[in-house]
């Protein structure tokens, strides 16, 4: 019973945290963009513009809701709903800290420690395409359709390389569970991060993560110069808000996955010393905070790249995905396999 209450509490916390971080990502994005362009950014709503996400959200709610006459009404509404739901579902398998001993049993600090965690993430992220696909198709607009086709092509292409780079991590860990992957990166001092053993895999995964979340330089599905607004051209009001918001939730989840697969998740240097000197609950909180800092860094990195690199052309995108990243990730897998054999 206590376990269920604990898990429900964790789910609610995680849900609110995802929404909060996504909301403030929109604010951070504008601030980061401004700072990198020597500007100040939003600073009128509240001190330092801290209430800007609220103002933006309110604006989205108050806007007139328009559903095009020729659109497929049912699918038009379903699109953003799928996008948002799948984006939020992914956070279930992310481990936030080491196992705790609560209520006389071992409790893992994640919503569901399913043994195929990383497959679950890949599966749910792929479902996210349907949100964009359906929305773009149901709009009955050529720009939307082109945008959604681009989105699905791009996601399918980059999922291959992404999966291949994850396979290398799975080979070293010997498990599909994200919880195991993170705890195996602890080493003796908490610094046995996968990024040191899989630098090539990390770069491939990072590039694919950019493509999967439709972020610049791979934001072709919503390329303004060619497609007006891409798949969300016809959307208005909170449906548009859901699409934009799900992108930021996806960014949060991607950062969390990058941090836990390659940057040791909640592991931090000298954590064995900290663990000896603090209580169990305190240690779990420190771990969660460390993990959050890593996630926030990667969210910043997403934005940093967005305001540095221009957009790819679509054929360049496909070339990169199929001809470069996929062979490289297979090569990475082979090298990893060779090292595992050699070490045995």
């Amino acid at each position, binding site marked *: 019973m206590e376990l269920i209450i604990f898990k429900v509490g964790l789910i609610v916390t995680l849900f609110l945290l995802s929404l909060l971080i996504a909301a403030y990502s929109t604010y951070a994005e504008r601030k980061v963009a401004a700072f990198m362009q*020597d500007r100040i950014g939003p600073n009128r709503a509240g001190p330092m513009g801290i209430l800007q996400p609220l103002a933006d959200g309110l604006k989205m709610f108050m806007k007139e809701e328009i559903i095009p006459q020729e659109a497929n009404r049912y699918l038009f509404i379903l699109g953003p709903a799928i996008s948002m739901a799948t984006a939020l579902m992914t956070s279930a398998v992310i481990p936030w800290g080491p196992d705790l001993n609560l209520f006389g049993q071992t409790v893992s600090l994640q919503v569901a420690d399913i043994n195929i965690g990383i497959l679950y993430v890949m599966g749910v992220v792929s479902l996210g395409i349907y949100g964009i696909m359906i929305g773009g198709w149901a709009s009955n607009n050529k720009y939307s359709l082109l945008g959604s086709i681009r989105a699905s092509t791009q996601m399918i292409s980059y999922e291959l390389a992404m999966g291949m780079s994850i396979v290398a991590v799975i080979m070293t860990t010997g498990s599909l569970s994200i919880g195991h992957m993170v705890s195996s990166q602890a080493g003796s001092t908490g610094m046995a991060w996968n990024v040191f053993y899989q630098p090539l895999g990390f770069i491939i995964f990072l590039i694919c993560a950019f493509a999967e979340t439709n972020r610049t330089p791979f934001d072709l599905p919503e390329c303004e110069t060619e497609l007006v607004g891409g798949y969300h051209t016809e959307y208005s009001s909170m449906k548009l808000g859901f699409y934009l918001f799900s992108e930021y939730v996806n960014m949060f989840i991607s950062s969390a996955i990058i941090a836990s697969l390659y940057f040791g998740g909640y592991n931090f240097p000298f954590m064995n010393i900290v663990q000896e000197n603090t209580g169990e609950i305190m240690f779990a909180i420190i771990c969660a905070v460390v993990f959050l800092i890593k996630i926030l860094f990667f969210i910043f990195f997403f934005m940093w790249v967005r*305001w540095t690199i221009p957009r790819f052309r679509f054929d360049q995108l496909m070339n990169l995905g199929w001809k470069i990243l996929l062979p490289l990730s297979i090569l990475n897998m082979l090298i990893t396999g060779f090292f595992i054999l050699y070490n045995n």
Partner: protein
Amino acid sequence: MQSLTNRSKIVSNKTMTWSERIYLPAILAGLKITLVHFFKKKVTLQYPEQTKDHGPYFRGRHVLKRDDQGRENCTACGLCALSCPAEAITMIAAERKPGEEHLFREEKYAIEYEINMLRCIFCGFCEEACPKDAIYLTEMIPTADYTRKKFVYTKDMLLEGIEPKDRIDISKRRKGIREGAM
């Protein structure tokens, strides 16, 4: 043949090296540039609260000056209206009555004086033409409005006040004109 201008550049079609082809070094260099800018001093001016100083050459909306005894300088000679390339200025002259010597400097004055700010091109020819030192361009800016009629500035809007605090300082503009700027 040899180029005369010395501006032509030799175009090279060299193939990219391996480090150029993987793009990552170039991307890292780009990331470094944006990061440097991230910590740079910001150039934003918080406009309604802060304003930028104008140069002595700045030509904003006009002011009708009074002399040091508070009398209107303008004698309604019409030279400003004549010199105006945009036909923005118009006025009606009137004769000074006895007892109005403290209001108007000379026997003739402008009873009505209008400048259409939508026509005005802020060239400053009016102040150049004025023989009586009566009209000057200031640093003020005609504000936005809803109707065209509101942009026709009448004499009471253009004329500066009598009290010293209501006077509009144009010394900077005067200095700019003296130094040879229009």
